């Protein structure tokens, strides 16, 4: 009997709990994410998501727009070029304060530059800045002089990439100690429209309006939560439920199914990234360019896009995505043409001499079947499905492909060691065109030329294009380079995924701007209904 009483009491208290949930009027929004940020110190972070968030709390010199060419003033009111263009002088605002009351000055920028180029800190994006910028000096609180080693098209972009951090706080710790210190993650001092109210690791981040922000009109929404839900289905569930207002990445099938929901809106925009199959040209099977072309003709990429991505991608034809200015618009994607593929394979010497349905060829005196293994990383469900589709398609040509999944770390190891036959992966491109690390002959040993592609003509052209200051003439050379790659097919360029974001109708959609720079591009301007 006692047991029954205990049970009764438990159920009663349970019901009481449920009844006590108060409905709170929500004047805040919740952004959902499967991953947490890794640090509030921009120089220690490696994830793009973190940078999205950090860009809301730290101000840069200027706002970079989605064409990656236009910059509008932010911390800097204006800037002036010297006559020889080797120097830019930035005039900063006088009314920007860090969240602890200290003024943001040019000395902060000077210090931040030192951090960016510090070899002890080893910031991973330092390379260009170290190479191109000679010095950064603060003349006074509001004047900053940047000296460049030479004139090149990305001078403003490079100095703008420097994150501006509060010197009076950060200089307490020497650069060499930064990576070993959790100091920066507690109560970060920032100067953007939002400041960090709290960070509960693995659970949530709370951003609140920065009272000291120089533009009193912003931010419009005063409280923003970032809720971390590692399980993607759970996250999507909460979005559909209304518990989460913004989803940075929605799977195509969900967007497809719930596209008609009145309370939700799905925003799609192209991404500066592309997916590809890399053929390891050290493997004799893939050494002949006819074979690589044949494989490109033999994969039905359009169907992959329609079926697996539900149409949310664009065919890729080159390592420059379609929205990038250097992209060669004249190149048409390889059509799905089995006959042509078979013909090319035949011309390359592949026959089915033993009638087993798999092509074979005599290489170095031995009969070799057209068999190989495609590797990709296990965490990516889409890539798994794409791999299976490719496997099916290639079988129709008489090519046998096995799939091998690796956990991310092991996968990276294989890629860097060039230990694979073919790899299914993707790149996010830098905002400056430069293909040397991917396809240059010198990058085979040390660099990211993981497929060991070598074409001296490409090398020459690439080197000449990268140093041109006139972007129009550079474009002509880039176009030619892309034609070479189109012909040589060191990769089979698959598709450029379209990013899908979900946003609740609680937020006035006309105030929201999402683009390839960030889905939170103008978070401070968003308004609630």
């Amino acid at each position, binding site marked *: 009997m006692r047991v029954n009483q205990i049970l009764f009491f438990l159920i009663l208290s349970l019901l009481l709990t449920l009844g*006590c949930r108060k409905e709170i009027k929500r004047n805040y929004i*919740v952004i959902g994410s499967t991953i947490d940020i890794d640090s509030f110190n921009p120089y220690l972070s490696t994830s793009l998501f973190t940078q999205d968030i950090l860009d809301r709390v730290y101000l840069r010199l200027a706002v970079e727009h989605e064409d990656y060419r236009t910059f509008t003033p932010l911390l800097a009111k204006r800037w002036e070029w010297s006559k020889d263009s080797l120097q830019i002088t930035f005039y900063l605002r006088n009314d920007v304060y860090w969240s602890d009351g200290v003024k943001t000055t040019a000395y902060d920028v000077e210090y931040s530059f030192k951090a960016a180029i510090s070899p002890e800190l080893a910031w991973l994006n330092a*390379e260009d800045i170290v190479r191109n910028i000679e010095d950064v000096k603060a003349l006074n609180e509001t004047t900053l002089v940047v000296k460049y080693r030479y004139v090149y098209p990305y001078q403003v972009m490079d100095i703008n990439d420097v994150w501006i951090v509060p010197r009076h706080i950060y200089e307490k710790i020497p650069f060499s100690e930064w990576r070993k210190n959790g100091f920066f993650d507690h109560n970060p001092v920032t100067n953007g429209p939002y400041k960090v109210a709290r960070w509960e690791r693995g*659970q949530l981040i709370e951003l609140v309006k920065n009272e000291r922000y120089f533009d009193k009109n912003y931010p419009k929404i005063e409280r923003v939560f970032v809720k971390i839900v590692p399980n993607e289905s*759970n*996250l999507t569930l909460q979005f559909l*439920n209304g518990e989460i207002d913004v989803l940075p990445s929605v799977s195509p099938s969900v967007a497809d199914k719930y596209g008609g929901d009145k309370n939700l809106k799905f925003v799609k925009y192209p991404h500066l990234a592309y997916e590809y199959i890399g053929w390891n040209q050290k493997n004799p099977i893939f050494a002949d360019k006819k074979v690589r072309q044949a494989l490109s003709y033999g994969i039905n990429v359009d169907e992959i896009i329609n079926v697996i991505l539900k149409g949310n991608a664009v065919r890729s034809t080159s390592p420059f995505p379609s929205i990038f200015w250097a992209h060669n618009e004249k190149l048409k994607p390889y059509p799905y043409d089995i006959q042509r593929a078979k013909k090319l394979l035949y011309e390359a010497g592949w026959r089915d001499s033993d009638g087993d349905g798999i092509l074979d060829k005599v290489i170095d005196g031995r009969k070799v079947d057209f068999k190989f293994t495609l590797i990709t990383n296990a965490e990516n469900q889409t890539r798994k499905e794409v791999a299976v589709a490719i496997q099916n398609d290639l079988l129709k040509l008489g090519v046998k492909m096995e799939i091998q999944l690796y*956990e991310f770390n092991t996968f990276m190891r294989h890629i860097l060691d060039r230990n694979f036959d073919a790899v299914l992966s993707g790149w996010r491109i830098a905002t400056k065109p430069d293909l040397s*690390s991917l396809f240059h002959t010198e990058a085979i040993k040390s660099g990211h030329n993981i497929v060991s592609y070598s074409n001296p003509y490409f090398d020459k052209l690439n080197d000449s294009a990268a140093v041109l200051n006139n972007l129009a003439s550079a474009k002509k050379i880039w176009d030619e380079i892309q034609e070479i790659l189109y012909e040589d097919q060191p990769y089979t360029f698959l598709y450029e995924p379209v990013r899908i974001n979900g946003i609740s109708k609680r937020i006035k959609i006309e105030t929201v701007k999402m683009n390839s720079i960030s889905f939170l591009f103008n978070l401070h301007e968003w308004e609630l209904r």
Partner: protein
Amino acid sequence: MILKRILNAIFLSLGISTVVFLLLRILPSVSFADLYLSPRLSDETIARIKSSYGLDKPVLIQFFVWVKEIAMGNFGFSFIYRKPVIECIFDAFLSTLIIGLPALIYSFGLGIVVGVQLARKKGKAVDKFVSVFLLILYSIPTFWVGIVFILIFSYALGFFPSSGLRSFNFNEMSFVEKIFDLFWHIFLPSFTLGIAPMSAVARFVRSHTLKVLSQTYVKMAKAKGLEERLIFYRHVLPNALLPVVTLFGLYLPVFLAGSVVVEQIFSIPGLGKLAIDSIFKRDYPLTVGITLFVSFIVIFGNLISDILYTIFDPRIRLE
């Protein structure tokens, strides 16, 4: 002698951690693999980063450094979290406990009660029906159960939150409200975690109680005319519940080391999730630290159940 066993446990966990330490360094990996996603990363930068973490030294030297630090009580510094390993483990452990302890209590408590009652009512419809039900509960994969619960109780009915340990405005709540908020959040994950152990315990207790019931001395007591209830609670029960102690030792790691599956589905930042993240990101100090901690718990748990067994059953003595 108990001291000897405890020392044994410590050495064993140190041993396991050593093995893990060495294996980690041998495993194919790319330190800080995330960095390589940037195609323009230079080898020099990677070299510098590695050296700042001491990863460029030969493995044996790294090992001795590690041993020295452990001896001084410093269990390392996590790469990912930039916090001492002890702190990371402590925080995660709290979250795991908050789900694990209630699950432990209810699964063993309910399990024992149900098992005993079923044994008493053996053969009746209730017994058959509930036994089959328990079997089904045990057979369904935990993560499936978790997902179904979220779909029903969180998504469809909205009774419980589907993730996390507390609400946004937790800090502004009164003490009582905080308690309720916590309870509201841990209910589903805790419940999900305990279902399989609960049915295992119930079935185990039932079969063992029946075994005891069929033993000679019980039959004798019945023949003597003792009241059934008295026999049951005074004689049968204590003997039947004894082996539950071994089950306790067996299930302790499940509740204390965190169930990766439950934590993943319900987004609980517990020890299981921490372990997985640290392994996948090759955060060596954290992985080794967690191994040390968890293996110690497991060995210690077995030790406790052995000790409890000796205390309750005078017939058995530790060798």
